[in-house]
C-alpha cells in the first residue's frame, strides 16, 4: 500500500481517534501523541489493514487499547497526567465562561469510569450502532447498553445537582 493510499484510508477517522483518545487521556497533547502512535502502528502493519473488513473499527479498538495501556503505565509509575488544556488568553477564558454548562459536562465526563467514558464517547459523540461498539470493545450489546445507561445517568445526576446549585 502506498503512503497516499494509506493516508486517504485513515484520514477520515483521525478526528474520531483523537476525540476518543482525549476522552480517555484528558490531555490534548497525550491524545495527539496517541493518534500518532496508532497511525504508526497501522502503517507498520499496513499489509494487514486491507484484511480487516472495517479499518475504522480496528483503529478505534487499537486507540482504546493504547490509551488504556498508557493510563495503566502512568498509574503504575505513579505519575499524574499533566495536562494544560486551559489556555490563559482572555479570549478563550471568555469563551469558556459562555459555555459554562458545556465545560461542566466535560468535567463530569472526566469523573466517569474509563469503560463508561469510552461507551458514552462512541455512542453519544461518534454515534455508532450498539453492534459496532460491541465489536470494537469486544463486548456484547447488553453490556454496552448497561454501561451507557449508567454513564448517562451519572452525567445527568451530577449535571442537575450543579444546575440546581447554580440557580439556588
Amino acid at each position, binding site marked *: 500500500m502506498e503512503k497516499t493510499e494509506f493516508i486517504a484510508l485513515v484520514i477520515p477517522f483521525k478526528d474520531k481517534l483523537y476525540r476518543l483518545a482525549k476522552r480517555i487521556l484528558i490531555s490534548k497533547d497525550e491524545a495527539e501523541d496517541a493518534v500518532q502512535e496508532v497511525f504508526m502502528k497501522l502503517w507498520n502493519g499496513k499489509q494487514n489493514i486491507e484484511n480487516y473488513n472495517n479499518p475504522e473499527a480496528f483503529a478505534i479498538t487499537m486507540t482504546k487499547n493504547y490509551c488504556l495501556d498508557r493510563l495503566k503505565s502512568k498509574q503504575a509509575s505513579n505519575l499524574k497526567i499533566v495536562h494544560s488544556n486551559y489556555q490563559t488568553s482572555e479570549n478563550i477564558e471568555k469563551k469558556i465562561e459562555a459555555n459554562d454548562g458545556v465545560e461542566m459536562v466535560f468535567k463530569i*465526563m472526566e469523573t466517569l469510569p474509563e469503560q463508561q467514558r469510552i461507551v458514552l464517547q462512541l455512542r453519544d459523540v461518534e454515534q455508532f450502532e450498539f453492534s459496532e461498539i460491541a465489536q470494537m470493545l469486544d463486548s456484547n450489546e447488553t453490556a454496552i447498553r448497561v454501561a451507557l445507561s449508567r454513564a448517562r445517568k451519572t452525567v445527568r445526576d451530577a449535571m442537575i445537582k450543579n444546575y440546581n446549585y447554580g440557580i439556588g
Partner: protein
Amino acid sequence: MESVKIKQVLEAYFEGETTLAEEKLLENYFNNEKISDDLLQYQPLFAGLKAAKAERSTRAFHLPEASKQKTIKTWWYGVAAMLVVAFGVGSFFFSQPEYSQEEKEALAAFEKSKQAMLLLSENLNKGTEQLTFVSQFEKTKDKIFE
C-alpha cells in the same frame, strides 16, 4: 416539538434504549429549538455532546519511510548472503581441477624429474649388483691364500 414526546424519549435515553434516530431528535431539540422550562436542566448535556463532536485533532501526523526501507534492506541482506554462499560453493567445485599455466608446467617438471630420479636409482642398483662379483673374488682369494 411537543415536550411530552421529548420527555418520553429522554426517559428511554437514560435507560440506554433509544435508537440513533431518537438520539438525533434529542440533540436537535436541545440545541436548536425553544426548550420548555422543565427540560432546560438537560440542555447542558446535549450542548456538551455537541461540543464534544466538534473537537478536532490539530496536529498533523507523519509517517516514517523507515518501514519500507527496512524491508528492502533485509531483502538485500538475503540476496547478498546467497551470493556469497553461491560464489563460495561454486568456486570450490569449479576451481579445484583447474591449474594455472605455471602450475601445469611445474607439475610436468616434477613428473619428469621423478622419472629421472627413478632411472638414476635403477642404474645405481645395477652398479651395486656388479659389486657382488668383487666380493666373490675376495672370498676365493681368501681360500687360496690361507
